[in-house]
């Protein structure tokens, strides 16, 4: 059998993901106790950067997915 690597075990993948979720929650919690300097009214919102980051990520991928319908062509599109 081929050598088992760290991420070959589903248990390890789960561990990595769980650690990641905990860090995310911790970062959001910082907003509760720490007052960031604010340069702009939008930033005052609780968890502004976290929410913005998440929405940006989802909007980016779903937007790009829609773009594919319009823009995607065969690999040899320009060579034909």
């Amino acid at each position: 059998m081929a050598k088992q690597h760290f991420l070959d075990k589903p248990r390890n993948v789960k561990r990595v993901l769980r650690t990641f979720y905990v860090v995310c929650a911790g970062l959001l919690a910082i907003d509760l106790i720490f007052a960031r300097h604010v340069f702009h009214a939008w930033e005052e919102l609780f968890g502004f950067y976290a929410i913005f980051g998440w929405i940006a990520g989802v909007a980016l991928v779903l937007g790009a997915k829609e773009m594919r319908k319009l823009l995607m062509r065969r690999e040899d599109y320009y060579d034909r």
Partner: protein
Amino acid sequence: MIASLHPALIFVAGAVLVALSPGRLRAALFVLTPVASFANLVLGDHAALTTVEIFDYELAVFRADRLSLLFGYLFHLAAIIGAVFALHLRERMQHVVALLYVGSGLGIVFAGDLVTLFIFWELAAVTSVFLIWARRTQRATAAGFRYLMVQMVSGLLLLAGVLIHVHQTGSTAFGYIGLGGTASWLIFLAFGIKCAFPLLHNWLTDAYPESTPTGTVFLGAFTTKAAIYALARAYPGTELLVYVGATMAVFPIFYAVIENDLRRVLCYSMINQLGFMVAGIGIGTALAINGAVSHAFNDVIFKALLFMSMGAVLHMTGKINGSDLGGLYKTMPVTTTLCIVGAASISAFPLFSGFVSKSMVMAAALEEGYDWVWLLLLLASAGAFHYVGIKIPFFAFFAHDSGIRVKEPPLNMLVAMFIAAALCIGIGAYPWPLYALLPFPVEYVPFDATHVVAQLQLLFFSALAFAWLKITGLYPPELRSVNIDAEWTYRWFAPRVIRGVWSFGASIDRALRVHALRGVDAVVAVAWRYCGPQAAAARTLPTSAAAIWVAVLLGVTLVIYYLHGGG
């Protein structure tokens, strides 16, 4: 102190020596040239301005100030890293053109007048195209020709602009120009092409990914950054650049998500990063210019690191599409780690180099009241992490196991990546030496709690979005495909229009010829009928007939005469 030489001269001399020397000596000279030139620049004694007289013109071939020296140091670092990375190559041509290309880039950066600028502007185009052709595939050849044509257009616009500018102002000095008359717009557009402004950007995404694994590392460092330098020199504070930059920062991230060729993903990411610099130049305050210039510095190094890691993957596996790769971390752990350092740097993680420069541009945008631009740049930052910071390492080294088991790349490649990674972390953790080199005094404090927390929140939740989309299966799969972009106009539309016009013209031409031939045929037929061998006009008649006809004519004349009242 010894008087220093122009770096371009050293690179040309190095290229000649490399062209003439054999084997190991050639490899040594290839790396020593940028090192020697760097030492010459740092240690040598250079006047602020060196001029050379040619015919009646005085050319300012070397101008050393804070801005040009910063780019000069940067280009040397990039050349050293690129040379070490390409050291294993047994191809004389690639080494020679790489050195000439770096020399041209340095010529642009140190040019004190517009004529010198134009000369090196063109030389950079002509030398760099050989790094694309060096791949020796049909696709690379075609892409190289397209690249060269676009670069030549940029050069011609620059030439036209410079001629008008010099005619109007009577000065060839290369300094602040600012948008005004025709000349300034022509020069602006010439810079814009090389800087990959939106709609003028496809030469980059078209040609760079077709170059060799080592060629792309050189290409990525010089042309676009020389254009950034030129913009920072001639158009700081031009408001249009703020919006151009914001557009450049945002639109490529969408393309990068759905692009399959990982080096092409990096090209789109390059436009995204250039957007931050262009926006910074447009804002034009001391903070913004410092941000733009330092981001150019960091970008060259972390982009080189990313191009090198993908070059190493391409070199070892022969593949570069996300759909063909995956699971390489198992046998390439060092390359994987170095790639992740580059990814963290471009994503502007605190303690990595992107963080200490990108945030200056963002802060300047807020300070100057460009709220929406700031929000767009924030979107571009979150997006950049998504499609480069995560996508590049994830699809190449993790994701589904492609079953490919290749070793780490040659030692020189690893060393080059290691140098770049060390610079990324070094500048990221201790940015003050870089700050000391910037054009304006730096008051900015990168590592205050607000910046760090906000940036970490942005990045981690952007990553959370990636994880969520991937786990729920909403993330679009990597597909073998082409995504149409502005290049569609000249790679698909224009050829078809030209072909259409050509075939329409050809059909009209054919019809006209057919009709003309029929006309000629008809004339020939008529002539044949009346003048041919069988026709009446060709018949030979006996003499008696002529006598009869004469008699008849005489008779008729007589009758007419008589009737006419001859009596």
